[in-house]
């Protein structure tokens, strides 16, 4: 059974955790996340509240206030879930944000919607401890076999240095559990044979009406005119294994928390 973490942690503890993570990551900023479960019911309820109460100022994408992007977890002050709740409850009179009187359950819902990255499909997810998640990443998960901390790793596995800034938690979860369904179409592995008999295999980088660009396993770049292509196959499966059933629920939550914390410099 996965170990259940206490839901509430103090801000001091969180901050010290964040500093520890910063040290471990060699100076890379790691935004701290709480050890929380976010249910579909909460995300959906949060979406309703957000649409009615928050959207007029913060916008449908949460990015309408300068310096704030709620869907991307970019706040002026808030770090923890409790910080978000405090801001909503007390308001920011200097910035023109009113104080809202919400019930605790409503506040939980708003936080869940924000933490989901405005995921209107309301897929539940759980975030554990980022420090332990890093241990899973480097240990049991075997992720470093393909993913390097910076740049692209072996077999063209993409860099995860900014995955927490570029992907919603639910998208990251989907990559871990159903990589074939989660992979972006542009990233499909291409196998191309040319009219002059060459074979190029690698990750598709770009494509337009007349050409396709591929990087092979040796990191060589190929730009091939479609007029020169004899056969062109795109793999419908990802090279990444599914972690469904391979990691415990707690390990998955920890790994998720680590990945969500990777937001680049």
């Amino acid at each position: 059974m996965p170990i259940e973490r206490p839901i509430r942690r103090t801000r001091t503890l969180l901050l010290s955790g964040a500093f520890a993570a910063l040290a471990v990551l060699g100076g890379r900023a790691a935004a701290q996340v709480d050890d929380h479960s976010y249910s579909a019911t909460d995300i959906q309820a949060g979406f309703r509240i957000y649409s009615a109460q928050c959207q007029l100022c913060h916008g449908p994408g949460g990015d309408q206030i300068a310096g704030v992007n709620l869907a991307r977890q970019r706040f002026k002050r808030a770090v923890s879930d409790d910080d978000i709740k405090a801001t909503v409850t007390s308001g920011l009179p200097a910035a023109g944000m009113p104080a809202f009187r919400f019930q605790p359950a409503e506040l939980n819902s708003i936080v869940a919607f924000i933490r989901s990255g405005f995921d209107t499909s309301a897929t539940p997810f759980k975030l554990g401890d980022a420090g332990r998640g890093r241990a899973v990443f480097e240990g049991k998960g075997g992720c470093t076999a393909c993913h390097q901390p910076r740049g692209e790793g072996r077999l063209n596995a993409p860099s995860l240095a900014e995955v927490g800034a570029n992907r919603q938690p639910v998208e990251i979860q989907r990559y871990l559990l159903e990589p074939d369904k989660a992979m972006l179409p542009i990233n499909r592995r291409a196998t191309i044979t040319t009219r002059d008999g060459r074979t190029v295999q690698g990750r598709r980088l770009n494509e337009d009406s007349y050409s396709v660009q591929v990087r092979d396993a040796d990191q060589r770049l190929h730009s091939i005119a479609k007029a020169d292509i004899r056969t062109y196959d795109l793999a419908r499966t990802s090279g990444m294994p599914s972690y469904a059933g391979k990691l415990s629920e707690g390990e998955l939550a920890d790994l998720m928390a680590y990945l969500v914390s990777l937001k680049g410099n």
Partner: protein
Amino acid sequence: MRAQIATMFAALALFLLAPLTAPAAEVSSARITAAASEPQNWLTYGGAYNSQRYSALTQITPANVGKLKSQWVLQDNVIGVWQSNPLVIDGVMYVTQRPNDVIALDAKTGKVFWQYRYTPSADAKVCCGSNNRGVAMLGDTLYMGTLDAHVVAIDARTGTRLWDKALADLNLGYSITMAPLVVKDEIVVGLGGGEFGIRGFITALDARTGAEKWKFYTIPGPGEPGHDTWRETDWQHGGGSAWVTGSYDPSLNLIYWGIGNPGPDWNAAQRPGDNLYSDSVIALDADTGKLKWHYQFTPNDNYDYDSVQVPVLADIAWQGRPTKVMMWANRNGNFYVLDRATGKFLSGTPFVKVNWMSGFDANGRPIQTPQPTGAATYPGNQGGTNWFPPAFNPKTGLFYVSAWENYGTIYRREQATYEAGKVFVGGGGAVVAPAPGSPTPGIGRKNLINNWTSETGNGAAVAIDPKTGKRAWTFPQYDVTEAGMMTSASGLVFTGGREGYVYALDAKTGKELWKAHLGGQINMAPITYAVDGKQFVAVIAGRTLVSFALEN
């Protein structure tokens, strides 16, 4: 004899000097009416009042188009998509750049004469980019609409401002992004702001003074016909923007204009009724602005199917009878033919996948088939086509349009609360994609120019036979396209796409005859013109305006 020689020398001197001086261009409504007789010029947004974007120039042909070469390039110095349609009048090109600059340049060499800069208010609100689609010209004056809903008149010789008129309260979300239309001595403009709960209007200004001659509200108020298609006070924030240039038929003295979405965009349940004249074409008396007829493409629109396309006018044989028709490829995915004298619906045919309706009743009203919650509606939110101008070639009898294929949106409906100047849309939507987070077609592009996959929809240049509504040919493109169309008497179609290619296609078959990659999105239809007997094709891609011609 001596006097004759002197006269000859004087005439010769004038002839030699003429190309060196900026020619005195005096545009009149009569001249625009007869635009076909001076194909060296591009006198108005759609090339002529019929907006066919058809040129009688024939120097560039299917046989020699492969030899087109870039003659000059103008670099834009602002950021964002460049959607401007240049005018060319007697060798001088007038083009706008973001947000509200006008540049006059030598259309033969690309050398700039002057630049006029208007700085719109920082409080101007636009939903979808600080766009400007060009100027209009009358006499020796240029007219531009601005992001903060002004119209400015500019001396075409000097680039100095003559007058400046505010048309609406920008704090309510009004803006102007379209190129004005000159009709007689009027400057006709339509307002934008359909995502901010405006009440849209079209207005005609006195070209000399900017004084209002007439004003037509696109959302009828109490006592006006069509008001009963709104419940209670919904009309006050009913939208109905008019942000793309209309057309004009001098023989009927009617101005035709496409009207945008009702507000809020995606929650039709919040505004029961047909919501006239949203998503309609309206025919207005050019002198009074009085409504002559209307046809509504999408009653009680639930999908943001703005009808802000350019009405294309032609006189064709319809079921054996010569008929003044209007052709319209609508954002809602249907291609329409209407009788433009009466507004009578003649035909409507889907030109892309359509599932929001299943057909038309006897009066041409769509039979709507709303999709279940969570299911995709086709075409998607940006439509089967959009604002980018189509073309019609009287010689081939074909209508050309930039289309978006295999593109659907799953909508979300929400109650919207009106607050002045704030976004008033009532929900949102997600484009059908093979994996969550996939880049999908929408307004603008953030990823690399060739970073695309046709798994989320693709574009095509499409030729439609108006007599059948069926496609004559399809030129598929890997990415979607906002390029619009231009066609010529020699049997060519010029278009492009977001991938940065500009193409010349065979107007009869759609066969690719020439292409060039310009490295930036093409967001406006090419134009063609001639200077000193040389035909040019000008196109804007990314931040460059390139003019092509055959090498001497």
